């Protein structure tokens, strides 16, 4: 009797597996549909038929008939790279959030937890406020923001590693300390610079925007997120074990300190790239992992593909809203992600069936 039971269950598990494959295929379709739909939205009204003709022309060299070059440029040079940027950045932030949550075993972790946002802000503020100065060594906001992000992460790792073992708790606390410190430095710069134009630029930057996306700025975040996605998809099993805590991971043969350090460095670089090119917007890296986890569970082999796809789809539509809500121009996307993310997160919190860490 025992034997028949033992053989029966894998069939059930396999059925479950098939069900997840259907979800992934469905989500992949949804992603492509989102890209194709989102491209039709924008401040300049362009008929969908025209839009697709332009896309077919650019991709497969189909003929363009009676379509203005201005429209073609709007679709292909502005909207398309922006939508792809949204997809990569959404996927990337959601992935980084998932990895961070596993790395510090804290469900409230997000990509910015190691002070990356504050570091990038400081770098950006520095570049914006001193615009044109020789001090910048000829680098733009993006490079300075990235440098700031890496500096902050390095400082956090150093601080957390001081005086013996690097515990996750120390890391989270060090992140908070560094955030406060870098935030103060950025505010100090803003205060003494007394530059109204710069202040508005800084404000816009810290609320995030995908407006700067072009084909060539897409390359770095796009490539980075793709490589990162492959890396972490292959490490799903190790990420699972990381969630069990330090001791359990070691007894299952995972060198947890080394793994965690590698994951954190990769997440920091990816988040740094993303923040440097699009500014800061919260909640994607926190809410998407939880939302997907509440449906498929904590196993990263199922979680990670879902997180990547849902993150991409979510940010594409958030960006559509940011482009279309205001007639006067772009609404910072950080406002939209927070407006959607916060209530959704609250709903997840109050749904009793979903566990956030209290046993």
């Amino acid at each position, binding site marked *: 009797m*025992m034997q028949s039971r*033992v053989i029966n*269950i894998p069939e059930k598990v396999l059925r479950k597996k098939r069900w997840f494959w259907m979800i992934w295929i469905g989500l992949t379709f949804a992603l492509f549909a989102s890209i194709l739909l989102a491209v039709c939205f924008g401040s300049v009204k362009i008929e969908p038929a025209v839009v697709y003709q332009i896309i077919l022309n650019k991709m497969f060299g189909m003929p363009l008939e009676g379509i203005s070059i201005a429209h073609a440029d709007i679709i292909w040079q502005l909207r398309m790279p922006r939508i792809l940027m949204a997809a990569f950045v959404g996927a990337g932030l959601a992935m980084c959030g998932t990895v961070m949550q596993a790395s510090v075993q804290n469900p409230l972790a997000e990509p910015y937890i190691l002070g990356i946002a504050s570091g990038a802000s400081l770098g950006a503020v520095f570049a914006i406020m001193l615009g044109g100065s020789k001090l910048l060594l000829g680098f733009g906001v993006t490079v300075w923001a990235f440098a700031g992000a890496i500096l902050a992460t390095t400082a956090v790792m150093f601080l957390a590693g001081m005086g013996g073992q690097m515990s996750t708790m120390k890391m989270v606390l060090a992140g908070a300390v560094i955030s406060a410190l870098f935030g103060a430095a950025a505010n100090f710069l803003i205060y003494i610079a007394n530059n109204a134009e710069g202040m508005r630029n800084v404000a816009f930057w810290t609320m995030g925007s995908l407006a700067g996306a072009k084909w060539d700025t897409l390359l770095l975040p796009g490539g980075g997120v793709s490589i990162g996605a492959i890396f972490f998809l292959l490490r799903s099993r190790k990420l699972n074990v990381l969630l069990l805590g330090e*001791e359990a991971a070691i*007894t299952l043969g*995972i060198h947890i300190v080394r793994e965690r350090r590698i994951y954190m460095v990769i997440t920091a670089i990816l988040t740094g790239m993303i923040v440097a090119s699009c500014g800061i917007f919260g909640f994607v890296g926190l809410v998407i992992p939880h939302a997907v986890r509440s449906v498929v569970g*904590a196993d990263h082999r199922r979680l990670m593909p879902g997180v990547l796809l849902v993150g991409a789809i979510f940010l594409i539509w958030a960006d559509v809203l940011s482009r279309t809500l205001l007639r006067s121009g772009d609404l910072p996307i950080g406002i939209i992600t927070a407006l959607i993310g916060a209530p959704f997160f609250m709903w997840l919190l109050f749904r009793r069936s979903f*566990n956030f860490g209290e046993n």
Partner: protein
Amino acid sequence: MDLTLQDVEVTVEKKKIIKSISLAVGKGEFVGIIGPNGGGKSTLLKAVYRVLKPSNGTILFGGENIENISLHTSAKQLGVVGQFNTVNFDFTVLEMVLMGRTPHKKVFHADTQEDYKIALQALAQVGMQDAVNRQFVTLSGGEKQRIILARALAQEPKFLVLDEPTNHLDIKYQLQLLSIVKSLGIGALAALHDLNLAAMYCTKLYVLKNGCLIADGTPREVLTKKRIHEIYEIDCDVNLDARTGFLSIVYHPVLPLHDMRCEDAG
């Protein structure tokens, strides 16, 4: 597999918790470590399952210095049931047990039918086969403990380390857990609190107090009235139960504490 500790010392935050301990667990032996709280049992076990590094001495696992064995390799042979069962994320019971297969897997490997079979067999062994699809976090403390044992069994270990494995378990499952471990016929080293159970299952006992080994031997040699008083500062009667052939230890109540408290307050 066998395990030998030679003059092992463990220092945690500059404090020497384990002072020069040597012990041996032969193939198929079930060895217990007993001793008062804070005596260093868990710390010693942590050094064995490689969470802590000994500051001195050597640990030989299967005759080889454990420091020369990769973590990945030792995890294929060394299963651990520890006290670290808090998980903040939702895993199903089956997923939890399947994680025991991790050391046997490479980056590209998916779970095979074989893995599922091993995991389900381990679950059946601990009597949790009906809980496969339940969430681990919703289980009771004792059920979690049994799942952790199942995970260790799924590792197909050649040696088991158990740190107070009977915690949270009712008496039926205390006996069941120790019987499972014993029936595997592999070497096992367990920190135990219950002296009656220790006497019943262990072939050899080591007594650890203040980081030092103060006695070792068979349960009958170690568990005497005098020695127990020495270890735990309590009185008891130790008898050999003629019917079962096991030692039976009956403790005497300690003086009521509140009298002492009143004196202190005065």
